[in-house]
């Protein structure tokens, strides 16, 4: 039977595009024949802003890229600056950085699991995810005074030391989380309808995934156990015991399960950090420090350089953010402002694989497959 194709604009305003993303779908009834992604509705010119602000002033902007997990963004940028300037970071600061980043990984995956289930029509998981996320956000609030846009990691250390009562509350969170994961398991993982909706949907092979530049949990769902924390260890990750979670099914379900496993791994890492975190300074006073230590806790703040001039040069530095490889390319010309900042966004590169993946599937499958790509539009459009 001959049928006419239907052009369906999904987005920019649509419940399941997670923001202002637009799919231009050519449909044959319910079946997708062609998918084009149109983006840029949230383009804020962050890279241009990077050229216009000083090195320190740009850190708050990185919070606004991937606002679900802002701490790794902070760290990725700061790591690039530190590599450029050759700053040594005190051990305690590195421990705190990894601690907050792994906590953020948990937060990010909770939001992803919730929103994926919401995309599939189950509204309970997102509330449960947000319930646990709330505890984590309160921890962040104790730590740096903000819940989502932290501006916490600075070149040479972290902004403030761990506050009083942080570690006990974190322990409580870990204990709580371990119980909750059992709940998630029972609610979602065995659910036959969930399995029907996610198994064998959005399949992408390992070679294809690598070629399309997929990184992070989305790629590890395709049977590739590549994790930058393992391949190119940075910070204190070489000292920690963890594994890169990986699934072989290559489908939406595998990508979901990788996230759940990563929450468990992150909890494991958090426990190790709590046990081994050393005492000491949280800010490097090595080369760019300004004021001498007066011993007053509030004076710690004036350690941070306000004006910061790394030597001329260029650097590309990347980390394993919760959503994938997050890299910052910085070219410096020896002034107080970067000459060029380029953000290698995980969402942007992961999404290259989507249009091919969904051809032949139906709209609900597109929603499910897209849900596991873990897109945050602030990060995609920059």
């Amino acid at each position, binding site marked *: 039977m001959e049928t006419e194709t239907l052009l369906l604009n999904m987005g920019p305003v649509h419940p399941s595009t997670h923001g202002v993303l637009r799919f231009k779908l050519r449909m044959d009834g319910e079946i997708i024949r062609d998918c084009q992604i149109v*983006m840029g509705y949230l383009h804020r010119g962050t890279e241009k802003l990077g*050229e216009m602000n000083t090195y320190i002033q740009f850190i708050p902007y990185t919070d606004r890229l991937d606002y679900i997990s802002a701490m790794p963004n902070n760290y990725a940028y700061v790591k690039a600056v530190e590599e*450029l300037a050759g700053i040594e970071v005190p051990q305690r600061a590195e421990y705190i950085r990894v601690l907050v980043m792994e906590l953020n990984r948990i937060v990010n995956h909770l939001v992803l699991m919730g929103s994926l289930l919401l995309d599939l029509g189950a509204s309970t998981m997102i509330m449960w995810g947000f319930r646990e996320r709330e505890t984590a956000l309160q921890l962040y609030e104790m730590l740096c005074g903000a819940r989502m846009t932290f501006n916490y990691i600075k070149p040479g250390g972290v902004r403030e030391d761990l506050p009083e009562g942080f570690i006990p509350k974190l322990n409580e969170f870990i204990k709580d989380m371990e119980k909750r994961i059992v709940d998630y398991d029972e609610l979602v993982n065995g659910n036959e309808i969930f399995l029907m909706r996610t198994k064998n949907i959005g399949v992408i092979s390992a070679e294809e995934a690598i070629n399309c*530049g997929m*990184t992070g949990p989305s790629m590890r769902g395709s049977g590739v156990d590549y994790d930058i924390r393992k391949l190119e260890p940075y910070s204190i990750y070489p000292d920690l015991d963890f594994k890169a979670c990986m699934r072989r099914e290559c489908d939406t379900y595998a990508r979901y399960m990788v996230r759940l496993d990563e929450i468990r791994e992150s909890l494991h890492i958090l426990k190790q950090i709590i046990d081994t975190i050393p005492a000491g300074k949280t800010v490097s006073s090595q080369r760019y420090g300004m004021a001498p230590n007066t011993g007053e806790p509030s004076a710690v703040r004036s350690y941070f350089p306000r004006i910061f001039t790394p030597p001329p040069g260029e650097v*590309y530095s990347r980390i394993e953010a919760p959503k994938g490889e997050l*890299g910052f*390319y910085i*070219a410096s010309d020896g002034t107080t402002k970067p000459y060029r900042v380029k953000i290698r966004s995980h969402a942007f590169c992961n999404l290259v694989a989507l249009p091919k993946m969904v051809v032949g599937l139906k709209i609900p499958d597109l929603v499910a497959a897209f849900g596991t790509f873990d897109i945050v539009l602030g990060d995609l*459009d920059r």
Partner: protein
Amino acid sequence: MNPAEELKYLLPNSVISVGVQTNKPLAVIKKEDMLKVAAKVKEMGFDHLSVITGVDYVDRVEVIYNFFSYKKKQNLALKVVLDHGAPAVDSVRSIWKVADWLERETYDLVGIKFNGHPDLRRILLPEGWIGHPLRKDYDMSIEQFVTIGEDGEDIVSTDGSNLLRRK
């Protein structure tokens, strides 16, 4: 021997110089030989194209490719130097699929043409936007207004005449 030197050894005519990008080996290559070098780089096991960056240095434009090899756990950066007037380089879209969007983005924001790219359109900014924002000579004083037309296409104007609420 780091990968950049290896590349120089394999393709002595295409690689102009070898250096470092802070902690990663960097090879500066001739722009005419981009495709040849890219194929060789892929052959060397660099299966992951991390990022393509275009940088506008007023007198010249540089394109930097960052590669990573999952098998060998090695980094490699390639640099191509282009003229400032009409920067153009061969597309590596056929070798790494991710280059599709990365090249479109570089074209969009820095204005570098990628020859042989099948679909070289703007990606972040709307079609019809004036100038490439990450060029140093980009005029930020021009106000540009974007609305969505009847069929979902973007309409750009500089005087705000297409806005419902006139400016």
